[in-house]
């Protein structure tokens, strides 16, 4: 399935300034896998060392958060748009 992955501004430096990447993938996980294979520098920003999507990385298929679908196994169809949407967090942390 031909899907488009939208790249948020902070990660475009790792995709040759491209704001979207077209790829062929049957699931959202496969689309992200193809993306990080093509642009390996992206991996550490999207995945933990254990290979899980970082908690502050949100992935949407069209307008739906994949956490409420079938997560990375969510199936794609031609023309779907996968968006990487950052959560922003921080603070002093421990007191």
């Amino acid at each position, binding site marked *: 399935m031909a899907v488009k992955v939208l790249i*948020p*501004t*902070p*990660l*475009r*430096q790792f995709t040759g300034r491209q704001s979207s990447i077209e790829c062929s993938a049957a699931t959202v996980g496969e689309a992200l896998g193809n993306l990080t294979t093509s642009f390996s*520098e992206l991996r*550490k*920003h999207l995945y933990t060392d254990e290979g899980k999507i970082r908690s*502050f990385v*949100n992935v*949407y298929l069209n307008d739906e*958060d994949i956490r409420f679908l079938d997560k990375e196994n969510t199936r794609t169809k031609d023309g779907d748009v996968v968006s990487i*949407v*950052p*959560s*922003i*967090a*921080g*603070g*002093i*942390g*421990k*007191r």
Partner: protein
Amino acid sequence: MLLLPANLEQEIRGHGAKDYPHECCGAMLGVDGETGREVRALFPLINRRDDSPRNRFSITPDDFRAAERAAAERGLELLGWYHSHPDHPARPSEFDREHAWPWYSYVIVSVDAGTPRDLTSWLLEDDRTKFQPEVVSPVGVTSQNA
């Protein structure tokens, strides 16, 4: 270099004081040009960390997308984020680093017993290992004083 007009810097400080003892947060919208980044507008947000607002802040994907839309409507870019450190120095914490993204400017204002003090800006290194300080320079001061 982050060009931050004096009135917007005051707005960030004011937000930090208003939300004290909680952490405040918001987005910075502007232009990323050849000579530096210029903040043109702020988009204050609600700290969504209801469970721990004194030492953490969180901006949800919905708030992120609202900030992105606000930037697009003004023909601006989302340049980065600001937040406050109540009773704590304006230096990024390990918690800040773990949750940061490259490219964005992260402005921190320390708020000491309700009074805003130092204001700093930071950029995450691409390998995520540490932040580097970013010079904050006021713009528009001359015209405001004229």
